[in-house]
């Protein structure tokens, strides 16, 4: 009866780097698990911590954020803001019982389709091991 658990992942990727890397993975026909759904933003610095909370509130098992490598941000220092918010948010989420591994930040440039594919595969495996965020019947899943 236990179906294999497919983690739901919501991702936020910056237009210039990681979103482009995801596109490159596509043009190169690299394959990865279909449970990741991406929201395109201009810069990883656009990602409000509330987006991450919302995703978890609505049933995501993991949240992925992708931005340019430090020093390469199209908007100069957006990714520095993003990575600082990310570490602080991870620390806080632990207090809510959300394992820090459930939020993942990767610096992936537009040329790194392979790195993007691997990140999705690794994250999926990691979440499979952690299990669902809310065991079935838990409060809060699907609430808007």
């Amino acid at each position, binding site marked *: 009866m236990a179906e294999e658990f497919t983690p739901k992942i919501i991702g936020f990727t910056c237009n210039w780097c990681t979103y482009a890397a995801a596109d490159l993975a596509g043009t190169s026909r690299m394959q990865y698990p279909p449970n990741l759904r991406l929201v395109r933003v201009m810069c990883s610095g656009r990602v409000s*911590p509330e987006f991450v909370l919302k995703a978890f509130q609505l049933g995501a098992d993991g949240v992925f954020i992708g931005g340019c490598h430090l020093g390469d941000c199209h908007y100069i220092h957006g990714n520095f803001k993003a*990575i600082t918010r990310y570490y602080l948010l991870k620390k806080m989420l632990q207090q809510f019982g959300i394992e820090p591994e459930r939020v993942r930040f990767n610096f992936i440039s537009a040329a790194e389709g392979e790195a993007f594919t691997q990140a999705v595969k690794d994250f999926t495996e990691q979440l499979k091991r952690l299990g669902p965020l809310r065991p079935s019947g838990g409060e*809060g899943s699907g609430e808007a």
Partner: protein
Amino acid sequence: MGKPKIACYWAASCGGCDVSVLDIGSKLADIVEQVEIVFWPIALDFKYKDVEAMPDQSIDICLFNGGIRNEENEHMAKLLRRKSKILIAYGACAYLGGILGLANLATLKELFSRVYRETPSTVNPENTVPQPTVKVKEGELKLSPLLEYLKPLNEVVEVDYYIPGCPPVGEKAWEALIALIKGEKPPKGTVLTADERTVCDSCPRVKEEKKIKELKRIYQVIPDPEKCFLEQGIICMGPATRGGCDAQCIKAGLPCKGCFGPAPNVEDQGARMLSALASIVEVNSEEEAKRFAESVADPAGTFYLFSLPSSMLKRRVK
């Protein structure tokens, strides 16, 4: 017609909100002349059955303070909702969950274990914990069972207005009340006595540039009394907290802790403050970002001190 009927009730509360009602000092004597207080556990000896006997909607305004922590709180919230024309969530606990809402970061089991078994000064070899009922020779004593998590008032009943603060500013609360008594009808769900902007707008301190290198706890430095706290590295919730309190705490020399709750547009006060704070630190490497995060001792307790149960995640998720 008769004098307007006012009720005040405390659910899971520290009593501060009731005290704030008394804050207006001598004016209270005048006001008491003009209204009829039909229920006020802290001050008057009305019983629950008196409330149950009242006709529905016979209470004109009910000031409900405190969070919904146990079944008794929930029952009274529903009862007072039926009996009141206007139900006001009074104070941070009723509006947002309040400081008591921080208990939502633990499960009920963990709370009991910590309080009655694990705290360093507790001596409890028989593992005695409170029970919902206990038989004594005179009969049976009942304690209201706790709900799994604390809820703000609007998660249990429909709320007409909110008056924020921990506690609310007595003078302003009374002004709002009198306006309502006089027949003013703000849109349902309005947060009364509050500004549309955050505390920064009424803060007297000088703001220069929001850029910090590291955080300081308030005991670690002698803060400059004129400069913005945040710009000195001291966490102040002012930028993410609704104004209306006239920046009292700041004028008294302490950084804002966020008791008026989030700005009007904002659902999750804690997340906005976290983002703002992390954005203004000068960070030049991933290491520095990690170290900064580590330097915030208790993020949830700091950013959600008053608003945890009404935040996006509301409580411990797993």
